[in-house]
């Protein structure tokens, strides 16, 4: 802490600075006769001395870039991409460059707190760790005795590498919920049954054509930094064409060769019509379809006949000629790839949309080829032994009987389920989560639940900051920020697999403890002598010891030195050197490294084939498991699906009355929208994650308010111009915000970004800078005196009702019908209102689309022969 107070005196600084710059001016010897290096080092601009470099992994968002933290006088002063990291290649985005402000947030919580007033009243008492742990252990003890599943843990971002799940399993509870349903779950579910993995890795750098459906890869999306490096490379060096379908002019749309605005939720229809043209004009890759999918070209042609460009054009607003032209361009330009993110997926039938998009690279044979649509490349690490067993009883909420295909869970429906009494909760833990801000309904739904002590009798938040959710807790356990903790990492964010980790760059500030230590301490308090059988799963000295148990026996890494190697390099393997002349990773000969392609065409060895049986369809079975597929006399590993080929027809979907083939369902309430109704969509800024970065000064300085985007034509019709106050009203509530009227948005869409409008999350996010800083033990930042903006925006989630994709479980973020009008005389900027009752009605409405609901059959006339919900056997949910 003393180091934080370090300040070089002004006089000393000025002298040092004058001396060094003058010396530099006078002595050309300092200049070197070489091209400058791209990172790996940093120097103080004041005294030109080298700053201490420590490799780690970024975690401002969830992309997991390799990073280097630079430390000067004990303070983290600078972050940079790790030049040895194959995905990141020495670069970080605006958020990653600002990550030290998570650590040095003046409103950070540095010791345990206990609520002393009413829930949410904001009255806290500082308590010791021992007091906090004792109270938690006592509540856990009682809860476990009643039923372990009454202990719930919900996380927003869990990068602990298994520690969070280990904790809840140690307690014997299966009630664990995540954040994926408000993120991208229907994209995952659209893809997984089709080809195995839940994401694609397009080879952007080597492609010639990128068809982007609703991904804002230049600002956010999985995997913003590493992917868009390659997009820029592909566009500038390889002359690739980028075509973006989006409802608004994101930076990605604005930098594309073509931006094609669509009506929200209709990307799937456009993708199907593109497929129709490709198949109609015989531009498909018949050999790929017949060899690698479970349908024939003829079946596919028959199926796609219904999806005419005229049909899609009417739904989406994309001209027929554009669909015809793009289909021909995509099919005749090789290699080509599609890329999607939340645009198609975050709708009532998002999984169908995602699958429709994915069909395009499949039918054109662009799978696993150089410049095409590739499988993700991942790498695994180990779990410390022994591991706690699977909880004895499934949990109703984690197992959601109405959403059997949504294996990434449907967490945004939790408050309604708890209020309905579907599952009793005694102890509720949150970790790095903030649904009171991030989920649909926001404080009207989640705030209502947390404020009700009958629904949530005891609530513990593991958090670093007084977020909207943490402000409603009973006990706050101060967690460490990512730059102060140990965590294993691996992310398929380029075509080269890697393992990396986070190591503490500085010691945890104040009394904060890193997550796995907090969890261990709770278990040790609950089971001090090991007699409950819990303590044995938490046998490690410290974070580093835990890492050693995860990494030291990974083949290859072990030989390289295990954790000791990672401490030095931050990532393994090192594929080559970052070439300053090209920004690419090059091998020893100076040539750019090439990834491996055609993973599905790897051949099985004779040993693999020993004892294997080849089934009629070619699937190679061994010990009851499909290990490959035989094609043209060769034994390939194929794709990681149940029969090792691409399932264009997903039979499991048909079991629940869903269409197993590529299809599109128009959102019913979009069908007969009135003239004055529009669709509300949300989006992320280039400089913000969903909720955490509003407390980061450099990012808040760039984007702190979020006026509603309205098309010029719509603005003229409604008499609204830029700066006017507008009222945006949905079926669950309304808000009053400012308008930004311009050309870059579909006339039927109003877009309000998230990341603004905090009412908690510290003084900067909520713009309560008149209050004193450092309320919870952190050091104040004098620079906050320079904050000049007076508008922190309006948060839209309160007026967005829940929608759940009956297949993928996703929240339909972009489905909300709203009326936009000029604000009335009594409307004030920032007014937001919504009611719990109306949100409950929306919840009941969306449940009608579940396979158990009354609207399911009506939405699927083509599945008339389906035997009904009782014909489907119930399956356990999984997810992570």
């Amino acid at each position, binding site marked *: 802490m003393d180091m934080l107070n*370090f300040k070089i005196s*002004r006089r000393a*600084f*000025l002298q040092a600075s*004058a001396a*060094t710059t003058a010396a*530099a*001016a006078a002595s*050309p010897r*300092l*200049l070197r006769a*070489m*091209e*400058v*290096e*791209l990172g790996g080092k*940093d*120097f103080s*601009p004041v005294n*030109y001395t080298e700053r201490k470099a420590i490799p780690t992994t970024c975690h401002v968002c969830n992309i997991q870039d390799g990073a280097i933290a630079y430390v000067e006088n004990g303070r983290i*002063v*600078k*972050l*940079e991409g790790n030049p040895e990291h194959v995905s990141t290649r020495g*670069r*970080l*985005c605006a*958020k*990653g*460059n*600002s990550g030290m402000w998570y650590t040095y947030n003046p409103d950070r919580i540095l010791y345990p707190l206990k609520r002393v007033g009413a829930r949410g009243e904001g009255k806290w008492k500082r308590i010791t760790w021992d007091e906090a742990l004792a109270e938690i252990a006592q509540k856990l003890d009682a809860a476990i005795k009643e039923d372990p599943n009454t202990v719930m843990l919900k996380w927003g971002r869990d990068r602990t590498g298994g520690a969070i799940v280990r904790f809840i399993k140690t307690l014997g509870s299966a009630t664990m919920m995540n954040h994926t349903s408000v993120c991208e779950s229907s994209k995952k579910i659209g893809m997984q049954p089709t080809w195995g993995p839940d994401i694609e890795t397009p080879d952007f750098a080597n492609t010639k054509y990128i068809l982007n459906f609703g991904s804002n890869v*230049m600002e956010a999306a999985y995997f913003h930094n590493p992917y*868009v*490096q390659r997009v*820029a*490379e592909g*566009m*500038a060096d390889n002359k690739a064409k980028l075509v973006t379908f989006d409802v608004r*002019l994101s*930076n990605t749309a*604005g*930098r594309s060769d073509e931006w094609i605005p669509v009506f929200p939720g209709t990307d799937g229809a456009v993708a199907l019509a593109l497929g129709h043209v490709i198949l109609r004009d015989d531009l498909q890759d018949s050999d790929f379809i017949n060899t690698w999918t479970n349908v024939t070209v003829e079946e596919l042609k028959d199926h796609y006949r219904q999806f005419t460009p005229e049909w899609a054009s009417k739904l989406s607003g994309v001209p027929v000629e554009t669909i015809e032209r793009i289909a021909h361009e995509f099919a005749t330009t090789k290699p080509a790839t599609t890329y999607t993110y939340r645009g198609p997926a975050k709708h009532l039938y998002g999984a169908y949309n995602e699958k429709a998009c994915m069909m395009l690279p499949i039918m054109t044979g662009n799978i696993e080829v150089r410049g095409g649509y590739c499988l993700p490349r991942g790498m695994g690490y180990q779990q410390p032994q022994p591991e706690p067993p699977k909880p004895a009883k499934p949990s109703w909420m984690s197992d959601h009987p109405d959403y059997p295909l949504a294996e990434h869970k449907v967490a945004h429906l939790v408050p309604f389920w708890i209020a309905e009494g579907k599952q009793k909760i005694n102890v509720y833990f949150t970790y790095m989560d903030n649904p009171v801000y991030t989920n649909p309904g926001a404080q009207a739904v989640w705030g209502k639940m947390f404020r009700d002590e009958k629904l949530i009798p005891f609530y513990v938040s593991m958090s670093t900051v007084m977020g909207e959710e943490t402000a409603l807790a009973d006990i706050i356990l101060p967690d460490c920020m990512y730059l102060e903790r140990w965590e294993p990492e691996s992310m398929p964010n380029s075509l080269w697999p890697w393992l990396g980790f986070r190591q503490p760059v500085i010691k945890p500030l104040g009394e904060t403890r890193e997550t796995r230590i907090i969890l261990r301490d709770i278990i040790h308090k609950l089971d001090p002598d090991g007699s409950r059988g819990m303590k044995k799963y938490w046998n490690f000295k410290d974070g580093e010891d835990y890492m050693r148990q995860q990494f030291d026996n990974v083949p290859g890494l072990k030989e390289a030195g295990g954790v000791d190697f990672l401490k030095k390099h931050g990532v393994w393997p090192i594929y080559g050197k970052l070439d300053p*002349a090209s920004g690419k990773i090059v091998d020893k000969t100076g040539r750019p490294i090439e990834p491996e392609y055609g993973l599905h065409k790897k051949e099985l060895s004779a040993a693999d084939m020993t004892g294997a049986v080849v089934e009629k369809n070619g699937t190679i079975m061994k010990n009851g498991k499909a290990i490959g597929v035989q094609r043209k006399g060769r034994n390939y590993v194929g794709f990681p699906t149940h029969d090792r080929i691409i399932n264009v027809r997903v039979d499991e979907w048909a079991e629940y009355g869903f269409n197993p083939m590529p299809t599109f369902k128009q959102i019913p309430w979009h069908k007969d929208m009135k003239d004055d109704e529009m669709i509300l969509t949300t989006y992320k800024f280039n400089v913000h994650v969903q909720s955490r970065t509003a407390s980061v000064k*450099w990012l808040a*300085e*760039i984007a702190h308010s979020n006026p509603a985007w309205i098309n010029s034509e719509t603005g003229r019709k409604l008499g609204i111009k*830029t*700066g006017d106050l507008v009222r945006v009203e949905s079926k669950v509530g309304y808000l009053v915000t*400012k308008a930004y009227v*311009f*050309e*870059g948005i579909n006339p039927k869409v109003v877009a309000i970004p998230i990341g603004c409008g905090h009412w908690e999350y510290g003084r900067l996010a909520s713009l309560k800078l008149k209050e004193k800083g450092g309320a919870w033990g952190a050091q104040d930042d*004098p*620079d906050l*005196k*320079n*904050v000049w*903006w*007076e*508008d922190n925006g309006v948060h839209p989630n309160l007026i967005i009702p829940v929608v759940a994709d009956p297949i993928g479980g996703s929240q339909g973020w972009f489905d909300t019908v709203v009326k936009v009008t000029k604000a009335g005389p009594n409307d004030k900027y920032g007014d937001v209102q919504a009611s719990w009752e109306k949100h409950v009605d929306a919840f009941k409405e969306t449940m009608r689309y579940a396979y158990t609901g009354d609207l399911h059959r009506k939405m699927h006339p083509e599945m008339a022969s389906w035997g009904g919900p009782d014909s489907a056997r119930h399956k356990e949910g999984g997810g992570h």
Partner: protein
Amino acid sequence: MSELRLSSIETRGVPGKKRYAMVIDLRRCIGCDACMTACKAEFDVPVGVFRTWVPYRVVGTYPNVRKHFMPRLCNHCDDPPCVRACPVGATYKVEDGGFVLQHYDRCIGCKACMASCPYNARFMLPKSRTYTDITSVVDKCTFCHHRVTQGLAPACVVTCIGRARIFGDLNDPASEVSRLVSTLPTQVLRPEEGTKPHVFYIGLDRHNSEFGRAVYSPLEVLEEDRQAFNKNHGA
């Protein structure tokens, strides 16, 4: 008049001397703003001021609309008007390399350099800073002199996700900046000022370059923000 624009310390093409330059390839700029925050961190730049920033323009009529970004920073002019404007010699040009730098101990905060800069690249440091004790004097981009003289590229170049920023010695015909400037059409900002700027743009859109100083005006939607800025800035 033209004689007045000649400088005795021009270093472009001088044998044995370096002349650093930046090429900004706008085909590759994705508007991520990583350069802005990397620079903030490198120099502990206070809130309210920037050494580098990325304005943009939305152009066209729906549905034919595009977005153009234009990263900005000090042009490290070969004939810098700020150096001539400074009454106390606080602003100077480094002969080898071409860096335009600032002696903080000499600066009297008169803002003559700020007024003379045709690129609005200079700013007054506020009274409060996080950990660097140098305040209330004029500051600017240094082309990361402390890094470049020790063999490293500037912080904004290193972090540039799209690899839109390329940095190097223009006097070295083998450098990447020399190759780009020799082989591709490039533009500089406000060439009519005769400042000989050393930030070169590839693919600069006239919507960004033709407005003179008006290009720096904030977007319409930020009018209230601008008023707040004027009211609270430097408080």
